[in-house]
């Protein structure tokens, strides 16, 4: 048996591909660290993306439930008819936002350096 066997080459290749994929994934765009929640245009809460928690925000149609997790956030439930902001799923990158327009609630992710100066909806 030699020093490097067939499986070893496979493990090394898989490891290399894994590292490259990880690099592309982790270093593409800045990952956000704060969730900014607005209702009717006003900031109601700013929450660091550090631990699991759930936030309920009231709008004209009902209650929008926002879920915060380490490194990401999403709109878990919303009374709007088309559920666009819910379907967006988890947001991780700085500058990403989910807008629940009918209920006038929005969730925006921010990093250390804001991706945009301002966003007009």
């Amino acid at each position, binding site marked *: 048996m*030699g*020093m490097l066997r067939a*499986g070893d080459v496979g493990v090394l290749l898989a490891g290399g591909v894994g590292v490259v994929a990880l690099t592309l994934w982790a*270093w593409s765009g800045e990952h956000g660290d704060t969730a900014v929640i607005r209702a009717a245009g006003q900031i109601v809460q700013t929450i660091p*993306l550090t631990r699991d928690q759930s936030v309920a925000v009231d709008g004209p149609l009902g209650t929008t439930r926002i879920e915060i997790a380490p490194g990401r956030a999403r709109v878990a439930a919303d009374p709007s008819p088309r559920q666009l902001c819910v379907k967006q799923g988890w947001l991780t990158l700085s500058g990403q936002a989910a807008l629940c327009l009918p209920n006038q609630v929005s969730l925006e992710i921010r990093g250390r350096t804001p991706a945009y100066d301002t966003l007009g909806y």
Partner: protein
Amino acid sequence: MTHWAIELPVTPDDRRLARLAALAIGLTLAEAAIPSPIPGVKPGLANIVILLVLLQDGWRAAAWVSGLRVLAAGLLLGTLFAPGFWLSAAGACASLLILAVAHHLPKRLFGPVSLSVLAAFGHVGGQLALASLWLLPAAAILTLLPLFAAAALVFGAANGVIVARLHLANAPIVQGSPQ
């Protein structure tokens, strides 16, 4: 006359494991002196000893050597029960768990290099998992992840080649027990 000295029976196997653990501890101490730009990125030379023990004496012996190394290195470096110690322990545990599985891979296909690379990923994975749960925000860990993974791949492969050479050469450090 009463004898107060407590004699613990010590088998030659115990002595052998203690000697190997001492070797692993020595490598850990030597490595701690190497400056590193990112704390946690280290060659992991002690893994060479642990893998040789795994190949020669099985998983239980390797777990003993690894546990003794983490504990004694913590004592000697003055980090016992400090965050660094727990990170090191988490890395060692994850690595041993992976080795428990990987060590059953067909030997014909997967040699020491595979074991070493997988163990290195285990170390990094265990450490970062604990760090993200306990010490650092997940976003910061995510940024460092590629560096740690790349270091694990490179050092894991290098250590694996060393292990393969020593194992093929039947290196005397893991043979018999000269008193």
